[in-house]
């Protein structure tokens, strides 16, 4: 909380620019993600979603503009100091980015091992995380022996093992069949509703966003249930709501909730509805 009593954003980008030799990719992007909120970042391929997430984790520095995470000006800090901030951020990479010479268990345990926790502590937590993503059987396998969807789930287990308050998901359902995509979205949902994580999720499927906006995980029943139809009620459920942000040609083209997207009738936004 800052002095005015307003909630400080968990992630904020202010007029961020980034580009390569071939040209600019982002030209002045600003947005905020508030604590416990889910922000769905939509954009066609190559619009800079991955770059945005990498900047939010401090893996890339913007050419201009400022990125703040949990109040820290991450875009201006030296790498050594960013390392500590990153421990509060879980990152699910687009391609999984699992350590391919380590087993699934070692991958998931990586962050705990970094903290030199004893094996008796690590072992049950790894099992718990793998049970959460329903991959307990694969514990001793190597990433190369897993399917794409399984790898994505291991990657989620690895990101959540330390219960980070912020999780960045880079196209978690890209290239997966509808059933597996649904499983992954369910995972993200329950992670959000059980632990109250702030999520920034890049995707090019609008239905992923709608699923996150319209369902919630009910711990009493132990499964995903629809949210109340009354739009005002959504926010109270888990503190944050679900918002959408659409990139187009290096700028924020649209920002708002699902009702605004559906009502807009904008031909560009409709392209994501398929």
């Amino acid at each position, binding site marked *: 909380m800052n002095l005015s009593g307003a909630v400080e954003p968990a992630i904020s980008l202010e007029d961020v620019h980034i580009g390569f030799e071939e040209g600019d990719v982002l030209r002045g992007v600003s947005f905020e993600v508030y604590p416990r909120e889910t922000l769905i970042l939509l954009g066609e391929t190559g619009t800079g979603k991955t770059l945005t997430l990498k900047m939010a984790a401090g*893996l890339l520095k913007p*050419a201009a503009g400022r990125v703040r995470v949990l109040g820290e000006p991450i875009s201006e800090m030296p790498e*050594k100091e960013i*390392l500590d901030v990153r421990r509060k951020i879980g990152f699910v990479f687009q*391609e999984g*980015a699992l350590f391919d010479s380590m087993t699934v268990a070692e991958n998931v345990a*990586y962050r705990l091992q*970094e903290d030199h926790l004893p094996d008796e502590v690590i072992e049950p937590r790894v099992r718990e995380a793998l049970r959460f993503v329903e991959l307990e059987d694969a514990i001793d396998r190597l990433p190369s022996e897993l399917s794409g969807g399984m790898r994505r789930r291991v990657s989620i287990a690895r990101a959540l093992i330390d219960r980070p308050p912020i999780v960045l998901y880079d196209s978690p359902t890209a290239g997966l069949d509808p059933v597996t995509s649904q499983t992954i979205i369910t995972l993200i949902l329950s992670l959000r509703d059980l632990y109250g994580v702030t999520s920034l999720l890049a995707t090019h499927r609008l239905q992923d966003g709608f699923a996150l906006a319209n369902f919630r995980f009910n711990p009493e029943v132990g499964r995903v249930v629809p949210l109340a139809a009354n739009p005002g009620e959504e926010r109270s459920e888990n503190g944050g709501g679900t918002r959408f942000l659409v990139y187009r040609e290096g700028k924020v083209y649209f920002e708002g909730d699902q009702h605004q997207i559906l009502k807009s009738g904008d031909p560009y936004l409709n392209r994501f509805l398929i």
Partner: protein
Amino acid sequence: MADTPYQVTGRQVRTEEPPSVSRVLGDGLKRSIAHVQDYSLLCLESVTNILTGPRYLQDLLAQMDAIGVGSLSIVLLAGFFIGAVMVMHTGSQFSRFGQTALTGDIVAVALVRELGPTISGLLVAGRCASGIASELGSMLVTEQVDAMRAMGTDPSRKLVTPRVVATLLMLPLLTAMADFIGLVGGSVVSVFTLRLDAYQFWSRAIAALDFADIMQGMSKAVFFGFILSTVGCYQGLNVRGGTQGVGRATTQAVVVSSVLILASDVFLTRLALYLSGKFF
């Protein structure tokens, strides 16, 4: 930017005018200077990381095993043959003056001062600088290095320092073994072809060596180990362009580290001769 050598640099301005000769040369020069700067930084960090935590002892041991034990057989084989060939060449020259007994002296000095460290350095460069570059390069292109950074690990501590330190520790040991096996090879050949007494060969060889020779050989080994491991890491962590880039980096790592080893050998030898005249 300087503290994160492995990240893609975002560049905002785009220049459209056609390239001029001076621009191309200037860009090339700037790029080489940037390379030298990044490489020096990596070298510096690889050493300063030792002073503060976190340290990765487990990785260090694994690397010592991979680099030291893994290279043992080729270094020993090469040492044996080099020693044998040396005796053949020098023996045939010395026999013209009836001085074959001097073979032990010459072979010992040449091996310990020069051939032991250089051959071991080149062989380990071929085996490990390439291995390091391809391993780190593959990790970089599959985003595993980014994943590491995303989980709060400093890749220069986790990946670079264990490899550099392991090579620094193992190459002198490998060199010592190569020297010894080289003398064994030499003595075998001298017994069979020069009809020298093995005892005579060994006693002359040992008498010919003094502390300065051993110091010279070992410090070269440390130096070469530093060169080949840092070049391997640098090439691996600066891969551009996918799998093909990894291949290029691997070749580049061997070529660059071999050339640097041979070139620095000249200067190190000169320095060693100067110092041994002064101190030993």
